[in-house]
């Protein structure tokens, strides 16, 4: 029973991931764990490795900045808008999700 529950949940996870990946403008989607290794990635390996390291650093720095300003506060979401794209970072206790989305050009 529990295994079927787990598999359906996993199927849902897969479905959600696919939905995010195929969203308009999404270039890349990476889920990484806190130790720097990625669990899922849709971009090539070398870019993923550099991205995970750098984003991890930035996210930690942002988190410590928020925390230093107010110890009760915490980082919930990070959005980096660049000329070419937008990087969405959703940090969590053990994992981190990164999505690269192209900027909409009107």
């Amino acid at each position, binding site marked *: 029973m529990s295994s079927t529950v787990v598999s359906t949940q996993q199927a849902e996870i897969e479905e*959600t991931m696919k939905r995010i990946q195929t*969203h308009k403008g999404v270039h890349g989607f990476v889920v990484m764990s806190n130790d720097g290794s990625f669990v899922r990635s849709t971009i090539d390996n070398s870019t993923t490795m550099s991205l995970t390291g750098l984003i991890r650093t930035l996210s930690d720095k942002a988190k410590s900045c928020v925390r230093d300003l107010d110890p009760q506060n915490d980082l919930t979401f990070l959005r980096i*808008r660049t000329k070419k794209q937008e990087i*969405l970072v959703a940090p*969590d206790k*053990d994992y981190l999700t990164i999505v690269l989305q192209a900027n909409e050009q009107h």
Partner: protein
Amino acid sequence: MSNEQRKAELEVKRAKLEEIRQKKLQQEKLRTAPTTPMTPNLSSMPINLLTTPREDADPDRILQEVGIRQPVSLPASSPSISPGSTTSQQKRRPPTNMALQICQQTTATISVPPKELVTYSKEVQTIESGDKDPAASPIQHDHLQWDDEFQPSASGEHNRLVYVTDDEDTMSLDDNTKPSMGMSLASATELKRTRSLKHQNKQLSLQGQSSMIKQELTNDEREHILKSEQFQDFFSRSSRLIERSLWESPRAFDIFKDYSGRDLDGQNEKMDVGEIIKFDREFFDERWTRHRIVTCIDTSTYHPELVLASYSQNDESTHESDGVVLIWNTKYKSKPTPEYVFNCQSWVTSCVFSKFHPNIVLGGTYSGQIVVWDTRTNKRTPVQRTALSASSHTHPVYCLQVIGTQNANNLISISNEGKMCSWNIEMMTQPQESMDLAYRTKPVAATRMVFPGVEVNNFIIGSEEGQAYSGSRHGNKAGIQDSYEGHFGPITGLSCHNVNGSVDFSSLFLTSSFDWSVKLWSLKENKPLNSFEVNSDYVTDVRWSPVHPSVFLTCDITGRFDIWNLNHDSELPLLSTTLDGNVALNKCLWSHNGQQIILGDDQGKLRLYDVNEFLTNPKQDDFNKLSSTLQEFKRNTLDAFDDNHSTNVPTTTTNVPTTSTTSSTSVSHNS
């Protein structure tokens, strides 16, 4: 000891003393020499001449004198000797004119380094490892304390990285370590590595160890992580955030357009004055709502932007679960996916948000079970289910309502077999009480139930046979008391007036039925006050507006929905719209603030419309108008009654000739 020996010893000692004195005198001369020859030979000799040691003649004389003075003097008293000798020297020197010799004297320069003060401050005993927030949670600490515990692993990859970056820093260390310690090259580099690592640790602690440990996970490990519950929890949260921001971002990017000048929420376009409703959006999910009929809609009291909808079973695909309940979010304009998806085994015939529990969703199913879902868990299946037994329902549960107050609340359910059960939401294994609904010993097949306002005892039931009943749960006459006959077909919709205003209309209720009509009733009379017959097919639902006393909404099976305003026209709807395509509307609902209407159709779509302001902001005289309209209705019914029973023309009314069909109903048409 003989005298001779003593003398010999004395002489030895004297010799020694002489030596010491000579040395002392020499030093003294070195010191005092610049002073003494200065005075006599100032003019002739340059001042910066090096001092010269005196001739030996003088010392001998001095020694003799000294020797005479202190025959048995121990070396300890030599310091006292020298000042005395210098003074005597000084007395004697001036007359003599000695030849000065210049010689180079190399002085040994000894540099004594400042004494290193090694202190141990009591504040910081550990190696500094970057900014440490004292109030940070343990979780945060885990990130930053890695450096202290971190042992450099044997892999050469990151060591190489470290080596390159810290090369200059460790160079000096290298120079000192190698020669001073005299170690071999290999061990020196080892030392350098560990030192540089520690150095790196200290300085780059905030970077985290991810830059250093980049373990590649194997596919198996990845699968394992994906399956773990921790990851699933995380992902459900994170994916929600990501999806919402993904859908919001196109509009948010507009901040960079500085020539537009329009405000950011571009959907603030006001409705035209003449426009009564405006299409807002529709909710449809390809996977979950296709080929399903919307069976029930509800909006949350805690979060008014959440819309709950239950769907029938999907006949097309058998592997999907029969029961589907979705929670949609109207706040995020572009996100097309539901916030929550809930499943159960049998298709859901009615659903409701729990009014007093913000996270509980209740559903009544076709099988008679009532299921409870909890939005706090990650599961899609119900957390609680009622037992399928004779004590609870065995027929489809067509209506659910939560009544009571925060502290004392109950769930009331009715099913097609004529049973009404009251439940405690915390314990759903068996009902708190159950009651068989029977009118004059005939069981009532209930299809609709409403508790007017905040009532907990009195209720109104609509049945399959077409009658409406009123009853009470407790009291002397528990059960059904009055019946309201008027419809010819099953009652599909039942709505009680619920607007607080200057006039109390809470005894009014509307019913819609398969007999193509909508009827307005008062609890006090068992004949309808008025009947609205503009539909040409089954009318599937009717709802009073929660904010305007004279406005209500109906929908029917041809895809037509009407908004009525009794103060405007009591015979024709204010607005009548038919949807395109072959859709049939099954359910309709007003939002809590009365500003939106939600329509559910038989193809799984939910349509939301914004309603014009004049329908949401009642004016003061609307209530009075409605009472006069009601009186008019009364007059009409009386007139019709009179018409049927007498040939006399009754007192004139505004209406055109009435046609009476049967004695039980009276209808007035406006030709």
